[in-house]
């Protein structure tokens, strides 16, 4: 027996937003934004993810623990990528051969 039953209208609005975001991200890809292309694409993707998570996966009605788990997982992925990039990006900075 559920605490919150969202309305069909809510879900439909979220769904529409997701479709629009898909169209936008596709269209924007054809515009030259230089290095910002990937930023825009990721921002839109993150927004879509948030819509699905908060509304379709009911995270907005969920416990603090659930939200902590979600954020923790995303943070961990972020750490994996960030620290590895930290190596890859700084290779060759010292000017010593092989470093």
């Amino acid at each position, binding site marked *: *027996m*559920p*605490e919150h*039953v*969202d309305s*069909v209208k809510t*879900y*439909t609005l979220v*769904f529409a937003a*997701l*479709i629009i975001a*898909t*169209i936008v*991200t*596709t269209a924007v*890809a*054809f*515009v*030259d*934004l230089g290095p910002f*292309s*990937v930023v825009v*694409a*990721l921002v*839109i*993707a993150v927004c*879509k*993810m948030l819509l*699905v*998570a908060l*509304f*379709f*996966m009911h995270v907005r009605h969920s*416990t603090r*623990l*659930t939200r902590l*788990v*979600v954020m*923790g*997982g*995303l943070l*961990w*992925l972020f750490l*994996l*990528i960030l620290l*590895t*990039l930290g190596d*890859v*990006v700084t290779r060759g900075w010292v000017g010593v051969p092989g470093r």
Partner: protein
Amino acid sequence: MASEAHAPAESLALREQFDTEAQQKDASTLGMWVFLITEVMFFGGLFLAYTIYRRAYSSVFAITSSSLNVYIGAANTVVLLCSSYTMVLAVRAAQLGRKNAIIVFLILTLILGGVFLGVKAYEWNEKFQEHHVPGAGFHFEGIQADQQGHAQLFFSLYFAMTGLHALHMVIGVGLLSFLIWQTRKGRYSAEYLTPVDLGGLYWHFVDIIWIFLYPLLYLIDRHLGK
């Protein structure tokens, strides 16, 4: 929380390690979320490899990305979003105890998932035809010889990431079939819909993975070589 109506014993299935249905539901939901986090890290390794190689070989990745059909990719994305929509409506129907609606929406979700997989199979087949499959027979037209390796890396990631995603979709289709079967047997009600709920979480998660795969694989610098 409102008082719990006494539902038929078969739909409650309170396991002996739990004291109350609420505890069981909370534990099951938490368990599914922790599992999804492990999936984030599992796919995450591939996203890491993608990040490293896209950064290293950005121009080649843009060219190879353009060889993917963006309209099919976008359409498939829409198909999957529709399936998430029908899935959440199935969960909602379960919350309201509407058995027939649950079945209809689950079947729609399953069909849409099947469409997605069919389109994916078509796309993969196209890649086979064009010799874009990594391995001995790989060859990508329009780039220099010393960039063939980098192009192959793109496609390795393409097949690994979409392949792993497709595998999860297949498992999802299996889960949906199970849920449809159980719903028809009358297992779920407004008091007990945990498996439908958890199935929904899994399905939406697989959708979220695709939400990232689509721009990362199909939309790399499309403005360059249309």
